[in-house]
């Protein structure tokens, strides 16, 4: 009966989806979740949590009198989701219809990029070796990602000014420091999984994934003190083996993560007029796609 309920819930969630489609899907798609269900469910919960926060911020613009109280309330809601995460991918337009409608290009680009994230994890979780076969497969999927010029976020390194150099920058982390650290902990978890999956033996990989899950819980156990990030974690630092093997993918992930922070700032900053939100969303998403915008000649070293 329980399986049937999960199946129905799964199909129902699929029916809402009208974002970009990766077709045909890689043979490995969503196999990471079969091997590491706890980690996969956390990833689904992050998607849920991100969308929920964006929607709440959009609806609460200009109406938040007590930021600390707002943050406490939404943190408790999101932590409840993290502790009881969904079994299937929940589509953003189900949770955050107005956010999705306000940020169409950003959401399109996120959808596409999140599929790359997921499929790379799926390949790493299932590849028979840690060498040629795995490497070729990840690069193949990355090439498919990049071929979609209309949606791909660039793999060229950007300076931190891309995230922090706008008139509305840092509004989110200044107003909601704990929630910002939770989001950076999401990013940390996602990139640490790549590193964990590159351990030479399956036993080591299983152990490393479990440790990453445990470390994530420790990171968010007592926010803001438990997560000591001064800056958004970057892929090359947190996943050096992965960055050496696939040097072009980390910038694509980091640019995606920076764009998430930008969206949070747009939603929180009173300097962005309501009527400009959609325009700023398109403008900043275009920057994320543009290899020349905020281009950095120095990429973080693994």
């Amino acid at each position: 009966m329980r399986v049937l309920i999960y199946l129905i819930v799964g199909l129902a969630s699929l029916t809402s989806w009208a974002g970009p489609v990766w077709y045909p899907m890689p043979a490995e798609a969503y196999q990471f979740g079969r091997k590491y269900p706890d980690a996969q469910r956390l990833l689904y919960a992050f998607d849920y949590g991100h969308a929920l926060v964006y929607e709440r911020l959009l609806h609460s613009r200009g109406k938040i009198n007590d930021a600390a109280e707002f943050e406490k309330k939404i943190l408790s809601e999101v932590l409840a989701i993290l502790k009881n995460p969904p079994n299937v991918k929940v589509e953003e337009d189900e949770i955050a219809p107005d956010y999705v409608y306000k940020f169409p290009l950003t959401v399109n680009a996120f959808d596409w990029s999140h599929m790359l994230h997921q499929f790379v994890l799926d390949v790493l979780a299932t590849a028979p070796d840690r060498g040629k076969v795995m490497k070729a497969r990840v690069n193949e999927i990355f090439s498919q990602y990049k071929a979609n010029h209309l949606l791909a976020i660039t793999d060229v390194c950007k300076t931190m000014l891309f995230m922090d150099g706008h008139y509305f920058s840092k509004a989110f982390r200044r107003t909601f420091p704990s929630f910002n650290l939770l989001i950076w902990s999401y990013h940390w978890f996602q990139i640490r999984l790549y590193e964990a999956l590159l351990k030479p033996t399956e036993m080591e990989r299983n152990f490393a994934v479990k440790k990453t899950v445990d470390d994530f819980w420790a990171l968010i156990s007592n926010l803001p003190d438990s997560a000591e990030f001064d800056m958004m974690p970057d892929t090359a630092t947190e996943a050096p083996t992965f960055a050496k093997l696939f040097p072009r993918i980390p910038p694509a992930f980091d640019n995606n993560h920076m764009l998430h922070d930008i969206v949070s700032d747009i939603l929180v900053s009173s300097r962005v007029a309501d009527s400009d939100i959609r325009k700023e969303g398109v403008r900043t998403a275009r920057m994320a796609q543009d290899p020349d915008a905020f281009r950095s000649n120095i990429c973080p070293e693994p």
Partner: protein
Amino acid sequence: MTKGLFLSLALCFSSLAMAHTAMPGPAFYRSLTNKIRPDGHFRIYMPDGRHQDVTYHFKFAKPIYPEPIVTDQNWGVGDTIRLFWDRIVFDDESYLEVGGERLPLTCVFVSGQDNRFSKGGMLTPEFLIRIYLVANDFACEGPIRKGWPQIGGKKEAWDTYMHYEVRDPTIMLPQDAVLRYRWNEINAVLIDKGN
């Protein structure tokens, strides 16, 4: 009598001329896409008089197909229906304005039919061009989602668009317009206010 004979001869010649018209290449169909009106003003009439106006403006950016896709359906000798499809991305300044809300108009999808080589009746239009001016989809993938129904879920991809038909490419008049706004569909009528 003379008038009737003249008319019959004229019809005969025009049919012969049509039969010998060479079928055009994809560039011709791209030229039809390029003729789509770049601005439009429509009205959704309401019984209580609180009518809703919808406007759009677009500028072409880059074609998704290098040239339109063209295929022929042969129904017999001298009876061919030519189908064509085109897809072009719009510039970021393009918009669809509904109820004062300006949405990014992201691309056009054209699904057309060239009936000039078929044995249609006198009332069959030479062209039937279905135009979708799509909002919010920067990938321009639709109207049916890739891989559907095997991948499950929703059949259609676009939550918001302006759709209309053009039956005469000389004037490119939008007809039978329908606005789809966040999946809800409603009929609209072109309002030509002039410039």
